[in-house]
Every structure is written in C-alpha cells, then in structure tokens.
C-alpha cells in the first residue's frame, strides 16, 4: 500500500526523477477563481521527456502546462501561467468548468 501511495505522490516522484538524473519541473496551482477542478496547492511534476505525475486541473490544461514546462526546463526561469474562460488559449485547451486558475511552473535546481 505504501508503495502505491508513494508512486502517486508528485513531489516524491520529482525527487526520484532528479535522482535518476532527469530534469524536472514542478507546477503548482497558486490561485483559483470560480469552480476550479483542483484546489490551490495541487502539484503536477514534469520531466524533460514530457512524462508527468499529478494534476493541476484534473486533465483540462495539463497538456498546455507540460508544453510550457519544456521551455522552463531549458531556461530555468520560472513562469506563472493563467488559464480561464477569458483567455483564448485556455478556452482552446478547455478549462471546461468555467473556472480560472494560475499555475506556477518552476525548475528543480540541484
């Protein structure tokens, strides 16, 4: 049981991936408005090959966050992404519930 929980824990996964020599970005929901699918504080972790664990929106905008993470892994410069109905990009990637979220994406630096 413990093993199962650990593999689903994004921050434990991030640490293990760094241990494997992979580059890792951590995305964190820092603000929500309206009916956001995942609460503030939720994590999604992404490696350089686009593997990921966890979620920031239960599947709505993960694709966009993962593609932004590739840039952030390269430059090392953290970014705040915003998704919501008012945002053309977010509409396209589909935050279906009509909420709005801000997501901090940062690289893990050793």
């Amino acid at each position, binding site marked *: 049981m413990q093993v199962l929980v650990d593999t689903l824990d994004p921050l434990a996964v991030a640490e293990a991936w760094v241990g494997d020599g992979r580059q890792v970005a951590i995305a964190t929901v820092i603000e929500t408005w309206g009916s956001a699918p995942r609460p503030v504080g939720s994590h999604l972790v992404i490696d350089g090959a686009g593997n990921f664990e966890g979620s920031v929106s239960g599947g709505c905008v993960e694709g966009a966050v993962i593609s932004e993470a590739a840039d952030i892994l390269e430059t090392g410069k953290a970014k705040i992404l915003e998704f919501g109905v008012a945002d053309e990009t977010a509409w396209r990637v589909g935050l279906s519930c009509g909420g709005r979220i801000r997501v*901090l994406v940062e690289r893990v630096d050793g």
Partner: protein
Amino acid sequence: MDLATLQALNAARAGRRAAVVFTDLETDRSVLCVEGERCADEWIDAMTAALRSGKPGMIMAGGRSLFLNVYLPPPRILVVGAVHISQALARMAAVAGFDLTIVDPRTAFATAERFSGVELIAEWPEDVLKARPLDRFTAVVAVTHDPKIDDEPIRAALAAGCFYVGALGSRKTHASRVERLRRFGVSDDALAQIKAPIGIDIGAASPAEIAVAILAEIIEALRRRDILSGSEAHR
C-alpha cells in the same frame, strides 16, 4: 524550488511533520518551515496561521507577493486490537486511502496469517507509542474489549488531540471505562470526545458491517471537523 528544499520537504512529509513552503513569485526563491524545527522570525506568524487554517494561498509580506503552500500529514488509523472487526477495517481503510496500523500484544490474535498485507505490531500499545507518538492527524480505534490494553492508548489519544477516538463496548462498558479514565485525571471534556458505542448508527451487526460504521465515523470526523483546532468546521 531547489533540490535541497524539495528533499527536506519530502523528508518532513515522510516523517509526518506539518510543513509550509513560501515562494517569492518575483525571484522564485523558496523557504521551507517545518513544524517543530527552527524557522526565521519573519516567517513564524504566517506559518502559525497557515498550520492553523491548513489553507495554502497568496500572501503579502515585506511588500513582496508570496505563495504559501501547506503540507499536512495524511490521515492514518491506529487500531488497538487484532480482532475480527480489525481484519475487515484494515481492508476498507486501504481502499478509502488511510494508512492503517494494528497493535495487539496478544500474539494469538496478532498473527501475520490473519492480517496479510497489513502493518501489524504484536506489542503493548504504550511501548509502540513511545517509538511512534500519536498526533492530531491520527484516528485511534480501540477494539480489544480489554481495559488493560485499550485504556492507555485511549488516554494518550485524547492527550494528543487525535481527530478521532473510538472505543468498542456497550454503554455500560463505556461508563466504567469513563470512570477509570477519570481516576487517571482525564477531563470530562476529553472523555466526551470518545465515540462509544463505536461507529455511526446503521444497525451494523457483523464484524464487516461494524467496520463500515467505524470507517464512516472516522471520515465524518476528518471531513466535518477542523482537525487542526479540534472544533467543528463551518459547513
């Protein structure tokens, strides 16, 4: 976040210590404060408030915009008594996402065969609790029917502010338990926290049904109470 911060945060979480991470959104610098460890003066007030509310969010501090994230230990269940009810409860608790440990000094009950895949410790609860102290994120379920085994962990659970303390036994059995614990100096307020007879009232009869009633009562305590302050949450 730098790797050292991530490692220290994961170590605190693995050790069931509450932690707060402050991230400056301008510089992307992170500061970690762990409950029970030293933390710079400028962070203490915000950390105390965050641990009390359990809520992450944006804060302003020293003219800077910070994101504060709170990491509380996941809930777990300590079962005193390797009995038939515990066998069913262990399976159900795993499905519902709780860590569960069973303690029973009676080696005839506490056998690996009866509790395959469950963390089982065949020792006296007071000895186990020395190595692994209770905390407010733990539920204690006492089901041995034996005061020599049940009473001390119940007393310890009330002292530690565990979010749930339940004890098996009829109203009469519970009345004598309350008398014994009162003689040990447990306050009436604390005694009133004990859930007895244990489990929500669904007319449970079999051990598995009683386990359902207990698990439902634990979930209710977790979700409807502010486990940090011990008071009823606003719904």
